[in-house]
């Protein structure tokens, strides 16, 4: 089903919003690195964009694109194409196109301005987050027949993972500050892909020391090779599980 995938990638890359998104990311990253002398500070500013803007644009764009492709999907289902191939083509198309936008907008400047290993972690974090939120958007699409509800759900999920989750964890931390909750903290962080991305990037620029005792534990657990590997696996789970769950629902959907 290469034909369908390439068609979708081309269609998305031609989309004005995606071009605008690439340009905005480009503008942000180039201006941050040209204005900021301290590279670590630059990465911190960039981190906010990677953790907030990139997932938001990915989830909303992917979700709306899915709803706009309802007819396209219907047409394909009436033809000799497996439903799993259709789903795979949609996912690959969206993920490749949005990641291309991210790599051009942020990947290139990051590679030019900062240490290659750090750059690699930053880029990997962005790519994984983009793909995760595409997968989540497709799940929201299949769960809600109504477009408004589907977009609402995907925004709620973004809001929860990017902003509210941290608040809740912080609240929990203050409530149980007297108890040894470090392990639970680590687990709670590991569940959220946005937090994982944040920690991996922060560990790269040695500000983990500023995060106190918890920071030290994070450094000890996530800063090792096993730590990197585990966070990578946890983020992959966030891509794979929503994808296969939505695929199962799509296979039995009445069109």
């Amino acid at each position, binding site marked *: 089903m290469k034909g369908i995938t390439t*068609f979708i990638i081309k*269609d998305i890359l031609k989309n004005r919003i995606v071009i605008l998104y690439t340009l905005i990311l480009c503008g942000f990253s180039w201006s941050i690195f040209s204005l900021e002398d301290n590279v670590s500070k630059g990465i911190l500013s960039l981190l906010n964009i990677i953790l907030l803007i990139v997932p938001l644009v990915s989830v909303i764009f992917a979700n709306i694109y899915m709803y706009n492709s309802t007819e*396209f999907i219907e*047409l394909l*289902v*009436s033809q000799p194409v497996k439903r799993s191939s259709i789903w795979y083509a949609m996912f690959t198309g969206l993920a490749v196109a949005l990641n291309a936008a991210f790599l051009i907008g942020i990947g290139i400047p990051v590679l030019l301005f900062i240490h290659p290993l750090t750059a690699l972690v930053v880029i990997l974090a962005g790519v994984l987050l983009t793909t995760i939120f595409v997968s989540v958007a497709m799940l929201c699409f299949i769960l809600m027949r109504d477009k408004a509800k589907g977009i609402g759900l995907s925004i709620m999920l973004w809001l929860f993972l990017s902003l509210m989750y941290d608040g809740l964890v912080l609240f929990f931390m203050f409530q149980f500050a007297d108890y040894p909750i470090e392990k639970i903290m680590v687990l709670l962080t590991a569940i959220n892909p946005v937090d994982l991305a944040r920690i991996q990037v922060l560990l790269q620029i040695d500000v983990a020391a500023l995060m106190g005792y918890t920071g030290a534990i994070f450094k000890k657990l996530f800063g090792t090779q096993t730590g990197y590997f585990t966070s990578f696996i946890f983020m992959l789970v966030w891509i794979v599980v929503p994808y296969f769950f939505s695929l199962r629902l799509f296979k039995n959907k009445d069109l």
Partner: protein
Amino acid sequence: MIEINNLTKKFGKTTALRKVNLTLTSGTCVGLIGPNACGKTTLIKNILSMVVPTEGEIFFDGKNIHGDVFYKNNIGYMPQIGRYPENMSVRQVLQMIKNIRNHQGTEDKELYEAFEMEKIADKKMRTLSGGTTQKVSATLAFLFDPPVLILDEPTAGLDPIASEILRVKIIKEREKGKLILITSHLLSELDDLLTNIVFMQESVVVFNKTMEDLFAETGENRVSRAIHKLLKTEVLS
């Protein structure tokens, strides 16, 4: 060719099809008729596995269609309301379907030429009128010369000239020994097209007869009158 066994489809609490049994053979042109919401389109969508049956099986050429997609290479489908990606041009849609079906052998370009598709080939799908979209659907259904044609309300929205072109084409394909399944409300159109009639009402198949039997039983020679008469007598008896 197509065998439907005990097919039941429920959408939530409403039952769209109830224990439908039907055998469709090659060389016949079957008219699937019945009032609105009697389950005609659902039956067709089941055959194309666009909806998943609640119970029962469908066999295509003796093979269960569940989990199979390649049997669709043998079906040309013209939907009631063709819904296409808005940003694609007519040419792109045709090209994409060609790529998907990976069709070997010659293409049947008769309708493409008769409907003068070349003139609108570079227009986007969203700019086309309802009737023109129907022409695209019809062209697609016949393009790969499939042994089975499923036409859902083929003439709805077509102008008289286009409708006549399509009718002639259907008769021509029937003579080639294809299986053609048509749903329609316009009974007068069907007179010289059909060989069999399947009548559905309230999600069940009421009868499945050849045209000769239908005319002989009722003593009429028009589809519309024959069915009227048959329904009246069935209600009375």
